[in-house]
Protein backbone atom coordinates (compact mmCIF):
# COMPACT_ATOMS: atom_id res chain seq x y z
CA UNK A 1 0.00 0.00 0.00
CA UNK A 2 1.31 3.40 -0.99
CA UNK A 3 0.76 6.55 0.99
CA UNK A 4 -1.79 7.92 -1.49
CA UNK A 5 -3.77 4.65 -1.32
CA UNK A 6 -3.58 4.74 2.45
CA UNK A 7 -4.84 8.31 2.65
CA UNK A 8 -7.61 7.65 0.15
CA UNK A 9 -8.75 4.65 2.16
CA UNK A 10 -8.63 6.57 5.40
CA UNK A 11 -10.90 9.20 3.88
CA UNK A 12 -13.22 6.64 2.26
CA UNK A 13 -13.64 4.58 5.41
CA UNK A 14 -13.68 7.55 7.79
CA UNK A 15 -10.94 5.87 9.79
CA UNK A 16 -10.26 8.72 12.21
CA UNK A 17 -8.02 6.61 14.42
CA UNK A 18 -5.71 5.82 11.50
CA UNK A 19 -5.75 9.48 10.49
CA UNK A 20 -4.82 10.49 14.05
CA UNK A 21 -2.03 7.93 14.27
CA UNK A 22 -0.73 9.02 10.88
CA UNK A 23 -0.88 12.68 11.89
CA UNK A 24 1.06 12.09 15.11
CA UNK A 25 3.71 10.07 13.28
CA UNK A 26 3.99 12.75 10.60
CA UNK A 27 4.36 15.51 13.21
CA UNK A 28 7.10 13.54 14.97
CA UNK A 29 8.87 12.91 11.66
CA UNK A 30 8.81 16.64 10.85
CA UNK A 31 10.15 17.41 14.33
CA UNK A 32 12.96 14.88 13.93
CA UNK A 33 13.94 15.97 10.43
CA UNK A 34 14.09 19.55 11.69
CA UNK A 35 16.41 18.64 14.57
CA UNK A 36 19.70 19.26 12.75
CA UNK A 37 18.49 22.62 11.43
CA UNK A 38 16.46 24.21 14.21
CA UNK A 39 18.12 25.59 17.33
CA UNK A 40 14.78 25.64 19.13
CA UNK A 41 14.22 21.94 18.55
CA UNK A 42 17.79 21.20 19.55
CA UNK A 43 17.35 23.15 22.78
CA UNK A 44 14.02 21.47 23.49
CA UNK A 45 15.69 18.08 23.01
CA UNK A 46 18.61 19.01 25.26
CA UNK A 47 16.22 20.23 27.95
CA UNK A 48 14.15 17.08 27.60
CA UNK A 49 17.25 14.98 28.26
CA UNK A 50 18.07 17.03 31.37
CA UNK A 51 14.51 17.08 32.72
CA UNK A 52 14.47 20.84 32.24
CA UNK A 53 11.57 21.26 29.82
CA UNK A 54 9.53 24.41 30.46
CA UNK A 55 6.67 22.32 31.80
CA UNK A 56 6.16 18.73 32.78
CA UNK A 57 3.34 18.46 30.24
CA UNK A 58 5.63 19.59 27.44
CA UNK A 59 8.17 16.99 28.52
CA UNK A 60 5.45 14.32 28.58
CA UNK A 61 4.56 15.23 25.00
CA UNK A 62 8.16 14.85 23.89
CA UNK A 63 8.53 11.48 25.57
CA UNK A 64 6.84 9.73 22.64
CA UNK A 65 9.50 11.05 20.25
CA UNK A 66 12.06 8.30 19.56
CA UNK A 67 15.50 9.30 20.83
CA UNK A 68 17.64 6.17 21.04
CA UNK A 69 21.33 6.88 21.39
CA UNK A 70 20.82 10.58 20.76
CA UNK A 71 23.13 13.52 21.52
CA UNK A 72 26.57 13.39 23.11
CA UNK A 73 25.93 12.92 26.81
CA UNK A 74 28.60 13.02 29.51
CA UNK A 75 28.53 12.92 33.29
CA UNK A 76 30.87 13.57 36.19
CA UNK A 77 29.87 12.17 39.57
CA UNK A 78 31.66 13.36 42.71
CA UNK A 79 31.39 12.77 46.39
CA UNK A 80 30.65 15.98 48.24
CA UNK A 81 32.23 16.46 51.62
CA UNK A 82 30.81 19.25 53.77
CA UNK A 83 33.36 20.65 56.18
CA UNK A 84 32.95 22.46 59.47
CA UNK A 85 34.00 25.83 58.13
CA UNK A 86 31.18 25.81 55.58
CA UNK A 87 33.51 24.93 52.78
CA UNK A 88 33.09 21.80 50.77
CA UNK A 89 35.27 19.62 48.71
CA UNK A 90 34.41 17.22 45.95
CA UNK A 91 36.17 14.05 44.89
CA UNK A 92 35.40 12.76 41.43
CA UNK A 93 34.28 9.15 41.61
CA UNK A 94 33.28 8.41 38.07
CA UNK A 95 32.90 10.11 34.73
CA UNK A 96 31.80 8.80 31.39
CA UNK A 97 29.44 8.81 28.45
CA UNK A 98 25.82 7.72 28.42
CA UNK A 99 23.70 6.78 25.43
CA UNK A 100 20.74 9.02 26.22
CA UNK A 101 19.14 10.85 29.13
CA UNK A 102 22.22 11.65 31.23
CA UNK A 103 19.89 12.21 34.21
CA UNK A 104 19.73 8.42 34.41
CA UNK A 105 23.02 8.79 36.32
CA UNK A 106 20.87 10.12 39.16
CA UNK A 107 17.45 8.51 38.78
CA UNK A 108 18.07 4.99 37.46
CA UNK A 109 18.17 2.01 39.75
CA UNK A 110 21.78 1.15 38.95
CA UNK A 111 22.90 4.70 39.76
CA UNK A 112 21.05 4.51 43.07
CA UNK A 113 22.57 1.09 43.75
CA UNK A 114 26.11 1.78 42.57
CA UNK A 115 26.52 5.29 43.91
CA UNK A 116 23.91 6.49 46.33
CA UNK A 117 23.74 3.30 48.35
CA UNK A 118 27.15 4.29 49.67
CA UNK A 119 27.28 8.05 49.21
CA UNK A 120 25.30 10.40 51.44
CA UNK A 121 26.19 13.56 49.54
CA UNK A 122 27.12 13.82 45.90
CA UNK A 123 27.44 16.32 43.12
CA UNK A 124 26.65 15.36 39.57
CA UNK A 125 27.46 17.38 36.48
CA UNK A 126 25.66 16.42 33.30
CA UNK A 127 26.43 17.69 29.84
CA UNK A 128 24.66 17.12 26.54
CA UNK A 129 25.83 18.39 23.22
CA UNK A 130 24.21 18.48 19.79
CA UNK A 131 26.23 20.27 17.12
CA UNK A 132 26.73 23.80 18.48
CA UNK A 133 24.21 23.50 21.29
CA UNK A 134 25.41 22.51 24.75
CA UNK A 135 23.50 22.14 27.97
CA UNK A 136 25.25 21.43 31.26
CA UNK A 137 23.46 21.06 34.56
CA UNK A 138 24.76 20.56 38.11
CA UNK A 139 22.87 18.48 40.60
CA UNK A 140 23.16 18.09 44.33
CA UNK A 141 22.14 14.66 45.55
CA UNK A 142 21.66 13.88 49.23
CA UNK A 143 20.52 10.79 51.06
CA UNK A 144 18.95 10.92 54.50
CA UNK A 145 19.01 8.34 57.26
CA UNK A 146 15.89 6.64 55.84
CA UNK A 147 17.63 6.05 52.51
CA UNK A 148 15.45 8.67 50.85
CA UNK A 149 17.45 10.37 48.13
CA UNK A 150 16.75 13.93 47.08
CA UNK A 151 18.07 15.42 43.86
CA UNK A 152 18.14 19.16 43.26
CA UNK A 153 19.51 21.10 40.34
CA UNK A 154 21.57 24.00 41.58
CA UNK A 155 22.90 25.72 38.53
CA UNK A 156 24.27 25.46 35.07
CA UNK A 157 27.89 25.38 34.12
Amino acid at each position, binding site marked *: *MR*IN*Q*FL*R*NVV*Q*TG*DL*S*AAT*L*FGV*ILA*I*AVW*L*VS*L*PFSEKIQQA*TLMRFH*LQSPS*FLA*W*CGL*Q*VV*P*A*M*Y*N*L*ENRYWLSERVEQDDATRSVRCIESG*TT*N*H*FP*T*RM*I*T*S*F*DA*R*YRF*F*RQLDHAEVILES*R*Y*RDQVLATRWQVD*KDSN*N*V*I*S*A*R*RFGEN
Partner: protein
Amino acid sequence: MSAAGCSSDTNLLVSTSSVSATLPTPIVLNRIVIASILVSLLWKIRYFLLAFAVYFEYPLHDEFFPAWLSSSGVSLAAYTLSVAACLVSLFSVDRRYLMGCSLLLTACLYIQCIHQHSYNDVTFLTCFWSAAWSFWFTSRIGRDHDNLLIEKGVFISHLILSVIFLGGAMGKLTPGYWSGQVLYDIYFAARDFWVFNILREHFSNDTLHAISRWYSRFVIVTEMGCACLWLLPRRWASWLAIITCCGICLFSNVLLLSVLACLLGLAVIGLHEEPLPRQSRVTGDALDVGG
Protein backbone atom coordinates in the same frame (compact mmCIF):
# COMPACT_ATOMS: atom_id res chain seq x y z
CA MET B 1 -16.35 0.27 -0.24
CA SER B 2 -18.31 -2.45 1.41
CA ALA B 3 -16.65 -2.40 4.77
CA ALA B 4 -19.75 -1.28 6.56
CA GLY B 5 -21.64 -4.20 5.17
CA CYS B 6 -19.30 -6.75 6.65
CA SER B 7 -19.02 -5.13 10.01
CA SER B 8 -21.53 -7.03 12.04
CA ASP B 9 -20.75 -10.36 10.44
CA THR B 10 -17.09 -10.03 11.18
CA ASN B 11 -17.87 -9.10 14.75
CA LEU B 12 -19.86 -12.28 14.95
CA LEU B 13 -17.01 -14.24 13.51
CA VAL B 14 -14.62 -12.74 16.00
CA SER B 15 -16.68 -12.76 19.11
CA THR B 16 -18.45 -16.08 18.88
CA SER B 17 -15.35 -17.59 17.45
CA SER B 18 -15.26 -21.15 16.71
CA VAL B 19 -11.78 -19.86 16.36
CA SER B 20 -9.73 -22.78 17.35
CA ALA B 21 -9.35 -24.06 13.83
CA THR B 22 -8.97 -20.89 11.81
CA LEU B 23 -8.38 -17.64 13.58
CA PRO B 24 -9.07 -14.58 11.47
CA THR B 25 -5.79 -13.28 10.08
CA PRO B 26 -6.05 -9.87 11.81
CA ILE B 27 -6.33 -11.61 15.18
CA VAL B 28 -3.23 -13.66 14.39
CA LEU B 29 -1.27 -10.58 13.33
CA ASN B 30 -2.34 -8.72 16.47
CA ARG B 31 -1.23 -11.69 18.56
CA ILE B 32 2.18 -11.61 16.91
CA VAL B 33 2.61 -7.97 17.87
CA ILE B 34 1.29 -8.51 21.40
CA ALA B 35 3.55 -11.54 21.87
CA SER B 36 6.53 -9.49 20.74
CA ILE B 37 5.63 -6.78 23.26
CA LEU B 38 5.44 -9.45 25.95
CA VAL B 39 8.91 -10.68 24.97
CA SER B 40 10.17 -7.10 25.21
CA LEU B 41 8.66 -6.66 28.66
CA LEU B 42 9.92 -9.99 29.98
CA TRP B 43 13.38 -10.03 28.36
CA LYS B 44 14.89 -8.01 31.20
CA ILE B 45 12.59 -9.36 33.90
CA ARG B 46 15.51 -10.05 36.27
CA TYR B 47 16.74 -6.52 35.70
CA PHE B 48 13.29 -5.08 36.36
CA LEU B 49 12.80 -7.13 39.53
CA LEU B 50 16.13 -5.96 40.88
CA ALA B 51 15.25 -2.41 39.86
CA PHE B 52 11.95 -2.48 41.73
CA ALA B 53 13.73 -3.73 44.85
CA VAL B 54 16.19 -0.84 44.66
CA TYR B 55 13.47 1.70 43.97
CA PHE B 56 11.55 0.59 47.03
CA GLU B 57 14.72 0.66 49.14
CA TYR B 58 16.06 3.98 47.84
CA PRO B 59 13.19 6.26 46.79
CA LEU B 60 14.25 9.44 45.06
CA HIS B 61 12.56 12.82 45.42
CA ASP B 62 13.11 15.50 42.84
CA GLU B 63 11.31 18.65 41.78
CA PHE B 64 10.49 17.55 38.26
CA PHE B 65 8.28 14.48 38.58
CA PRO B 66 4.89 14.59 40.32
CA ALA B 67 4.81 12.36 43.38
CA TRP B 68 2.68 9.69 41.74
CA LEU B 69 5.15 9.43 38.85
CA SER B 70 7.97 8.81 41.31
CA SER B 71 6.05 6.13 43.14
CA SER B 72 7.43 2.61 43.01
CA GLY B 73 3.90 1.27 43.44
CA VAL B 74 2.67 3.05 40.31
CA SER B 75 5.63 1.80 38.31
CA LEU B 76 5.17 -1.77 39.50
CA ALA B 77 1.42 -1.64 38.85
CA ALA B 78 1.92 -0.25 35.34
CA TYR B 79 4.45 -2.98 34.55
CA THR B 80 2.30 -5.76 35.98
CA LEU B 81 -0.83 -4.53 34.20
CA SER B 82 1.11 -4.34 30.93
CA VAL B 83 2.11 -7.97 31.20
CA ALA B 84 -1.41 -8.97 32.25
CA ALA B 85 -2.95 -7.07 29.33
CA CYS B 86 -0.63 -8.89 26.94
CA LEU B 87 -1.55 -12.27 28.39
CA VAL B 88 -5.29 -11.61 28.21
CA SER B 89 -4.93 -10.29 24.69
CA LEU B 90 -3.07 -13.40 23.60
CA PHE B 91 -5.95 -15.65 24.63
CA SER B 92 -8.88 -13.47 23.65
CA VAL B 93 -10.71 -13.27 20.35
CA ASP B 94 -13.41 -10.81 21.30
CA ARG B 95 -12.77 -7.47 19.65
CA ARG B 96 -13.89 -5.53 22.72
CA TYR B 97 -11.48 -7.39 24.99
CA LEU B 98 -8.69 -7.00 22.46
CA MET B 99 -9.32 -3.26 22.19
CA GLY B 100 -9.57 -2.89 25.96
CA CYS B 101 -6.34 -4.78 26.51
CA SER B 102 -4.51 -2.76 23.88
CA LEU B 103 -5.81 0.50 25.33
CA LEU B 104 -4.76 -0.54 28.83
CA LEU B 105 -1.39 -1.67 27.48
CA THR B 106 -0.85 1.63 25.66
CA ALA B 107 -1.80 3.64 28.75
CA CYS B 108 0.44 1.62 31.08
CA LEU B 109 3.38 1.84 28.70
CA TYR B 110 2.92 5.58 28.34
CA ILE B 111 2.99 5.88 32.12
CA GLN B 112 6.29 4.01 32.04
CA CYS B 113 7.54 6.48 29.41
CA ILE B 114 6.96 9.41 31.78
CA HIS B 115 7.73 7.71 35.08
CA GLN B 116 10.83 8.65 37.05
CA HIS B 117 11.95 5.02 37.11
CA SER B 118 11.62 4.19 33.46
CA TYR B 119 11.58 7.36 31.30
CA ASN B 120 15.11 6.63 30.13
CA ASP B 121 14.42 3.04 29.06
CA VAL B 122 13.58 2.95 25.36
CA THR B 123 11.98 -0.47 25.89
CA PHE B 124 8.83 1.27 27.02
CA LEU B 125 8.86 3.74 24.14
CA THR B 126 9.07 1.09 21.42
CA CYS B 127 6.51 -1.05 23.26
CA PHE B 128 4.25 1.99 23.55
CA TRP B 129 4.28 2.49 19.79
CA SER B 130 3.62 -1.19 19.17
CA ALA B 131 0.74 -1.08 21.64
CA ALA B 132 -0.65 2.05 19.97
CA TRP B 133 -0.56 0.17 16.68
CA SER B 134 -2.38 -2.74 18.31
CA PHE B 135 -5.05 -0.44 19.73
CA TRP B 136 -5.71 1.12 16.36
CA PHE B 137 -5.62 -2.28 14.61
CA THR B 138 -8.02 -3.98 16.99
CA SER B 139 -10.34 -0.98 16.85
CA ARG B 140 -10.74 -1.63 13.11
CA ILE B 141 -11.33 -5.37 13.29
CA GLY B 142 -14.81 -5.96 11.99
CA ARG B 143 -15.04 -2.43 10.61
CA ASP B 144 -12.58 -2.83 7.74
CA HIS B 145 -12.34 -5.85 5.51
CA ASP B 146 -9.53 -8.15 6.52
CA ASN B 147 -7.52 -7.41 3.38
CA LEU B 148 -7.80 -3.69 3.75
CA LEU B 149 -7.10 -3.79 7.46
CA ILE B 150 -4.00 -5.90 6.94
CA GLU B 151 -2.68 -3.65 4.21
CA LYS B 152 -3.26 -0.55 6.32
CA GLY B 153 -1.80 -2.29 9.36
CA VAL B 154 1.38 -3.18 7.53
CA PHE B 155 1.70 0.35 6.16
CA ILE B 156 1.28 1.92 9.61
CA SER B 157 3.67 -0.59 11.17
CA HIS B 158 6.31 0.40 8.62
CA LEU B 159 5.61 4.07 9.32
CA ILE B 160 6.19 3.47 13.03
CA LEU B 161 9.40 1.54 12.38
CA SER B 162 10.57 4.30 10.05
CA VAL B 163 10.03 7.08 12.56
CA ILE B 164 11.74 5.12 15.33
CA PHE B 165 14.83 4.62 13.16
CA LEU B 166 14.57 8.26 12.06
CA GLY B 167 14.76 9.29 15.72
CA GLY B 168 17.93 7.27 16.15
CA ALA B 169 19.54 8.68 13.03
CA MET B 170 18.74 12.37 13.54
CA GLY B 171 19.97 12.44 17.12
CA LYS B 172 23.31 11.07 15.96
CA LEU B 173 23.99 13.76 13.36
CA THR B 174 26.53 15.39 15.61
CA PRO B 175 30.34 15.33 15.59
CA GLY B 176 30.64 12.97 18.55
CA TYR B 177 28.86 10.22 16.67
CA TRP B 178 30.35 10.97 13.26
CA SER B 179 33.85 10.71 14.75
CA GLY B 180 32.89 7.50 16.55
CA GLN B 181 33.91 8.88 19.95
CA VAL B 182 30.52 8.35 21.61
CA LEU B 183 30.23 4.72 20.58
CA TYR B 184 33.90 4.19 21.39
CA ASP B 185 33.24 5.36 24.96
CA ILE B 186 30.04 3.34 25.31
CA TYR B 187 31.04 0.11 23.58
CA PHE B 188 34.60 -0.20 22.34
CA ALA B 189 36.49 1.01 25.40
CA ALA B 190 35.25 -1.48 27.95
CA ARG B 191 31.90 -3.12 27.11
CA ASP B 192 31.99 -6.83 27.96
CA PHE B 193 30.38 -8.21 24.79
CA TRP B 194 31.79 -10.73 22.39
CA VAL B 195 32.34 -8.37 19.44
CA PHE B 196 34.11 -5.71 21.47
CA ASN B 197 36.10 -8.26 23.47
CA ILE B 198 37.44 -9.77 20.23
CA LEU B 199 38.24 -6.35 18.80
CA ARG B 200 40.08 -5.27 21.95
CA GLU B 201 42.08 -8.49 21.90
CA HIS B 202 43.26 -8.06 18.34
CA PHE B 203 43.60 -4.35 17.68
CA SER B 204 45.47 -1.39 19.08
CA ASN B 205 43.67 1.54 20.61
CA ASP B 206 44.21 3.68 17.50
CA THR B 207 42.76 0.99 15.29
CA LEU B 208 39.81 0.61 17.66
CA HIS B 209 39.12 4.32 17.28
CA ALA B 210 39.15 3.95 13.50
CA ILE B 211 36.83 0.94 13.68
CA SER B 212 34.46 2.76 16.01
CA ARG B 213 34.39 5.71 13.59
CA TRP B 214 33.25 3.52 10.70
CA TYR B 215 30.98 1.46 12.93
CA SER B 216 29.28 4.66 14.08
CA ARG B 217 28.90 5.97 10.53
CA PHE B 218 27.51 2.62 9.43
CA VAL B 219 24.93 2.81 12.23
CA ILE B 220 23.87 6.31 11.16
CA VAL B 221 23.60 5.34 7.49
CA THR B 222 21.67 2.16 8.35
CA GLU B 223 19.23 4.07 10.53
CA MET B 224 18.81 6.64 7.76
CA GLY B 225 18.04 3.83 5.34
CA CYS B 226 15.56 2.26 7.73
CA ALA B 227 13.85 5.62 8.13
CA CYS B 228 12.71 5.06 4.54
CA LEU B 229 11.11 1.66 5.19
CA TRP B 230 7.67 3.07 4.45
CA LEU B 231 8.76 3.75 0.87
CA LEU B 232 9.87 0.18 0.16
CA PRO B 233 7.79 -2.78 -0.99
CA ARG B 234 6.37 -4.27 2.17
CA ARG B 235 8.30 -7.54 2.24
CA TRP B 236 11.58 -5.77 1.51
CA ALA B 237 10.80 -3.26 4.23
CA SER B 238 10.03 -6.01 6.72
CA TRP B 239 13.16 -8.00 5.92
CA LEU B 240 15.34 -4.90 6.16
CA ALA B 241 13.84 -4.04 9.55
CA ILE B 242 14.26 -7.62 10.79
CA ILE B 243 17.87 -7.87 9.64
CA THR B 244 18.68 -4.47 11.16
CA CYS B 245 17.07 -5.25 14.52
CA CYS B 246 18.77 -8.66 14.70
CA GLY B 247 22.07 -7.07 13.69
CA ILE B 248 21.81 -4.51 16.47
CA CYS B 249 21.20 -7.28 19.01
CA LEU B 250 23.98 -9.55 17.77
CA PHE B 251 26.61 -6.88 17.26
CA SER B 252 25.85 -4.35 20.00
CA ASN B 253 24.05 -5.70 23.00
CA VAL B 254 21.71 -8.66 23.49
CA LEU B 255 19.86 -6.76 26.24
CA LEU B 256 18.66 -4.44 23.48
CA LEU B 257 16.28 -7.23 22.48
CA SER B 258 13.93 -5.71 25.04
CA VAL B 259 13.83 -2.61 22.86
CA LEU B 260 13.82 -4.43 19.56
CA ALA B 261 11.59 -7.49 20.07
CA CYS B 262 8.41 -5.45 19.76
CA LEU B 263 9.81 -3.80 16.64
CA LEU B 264 10.52 -7.25 15.23
CA GLY B 265 6.86 -8.04 15.85
CA LEU B 266 5.80 -4.98 13.87
CA ALA B 267 8.19 -5.95 11.09
CA VAL B 268 7.11 -9.59 10.93
CA ILE B 269 3.50 -8.76 10.13
CA GLY B 270 4.69 -7.33 6.81
CA LEU B 271 5.85 -10.83 5.87
CA HIS B 272 2.31 -12.07 6.01
CA GLU B 273 1.71 -13.96 2.78
CA GLU B 274 -0.28 -12.55 -0.05
CA PRO B 275 -3.45 -10.90 1.14
CA LEU B 276 -6.55 -12.98 1.28
CA PRO B 277 -8.50 -13.28 -1.98
CA ARG B 278 -10.15 -10.00 -2.78
CA GLN B 279 -13.47 -11.27 -1.56
CA SER B 280 -14.77 -10.73 1.89
CA ARG B 281 -14.34 -13.91 3.88
CA VAL B 282 -17.53 -13.18 5.68
CA THR B 283 -19.94 -11.71 3.23
CA GLY B 284 -18.43 -12.45 -0.11
CA ASP B 285 -18.71 -8.80 -1.04
CA ALA B 286 -16.23 -7.48 -3.51
CA LEU B 287 -13.50 -5.61 -1.72
CA ASP B 288 -12.20 -2.22 -2.69
CA VAL B 289 -8.76 -1.69 -1.29
CA GLY B 290 -8.45 1.65 -2.93
CA GLY B 291 -6.32 0.75 -5.89
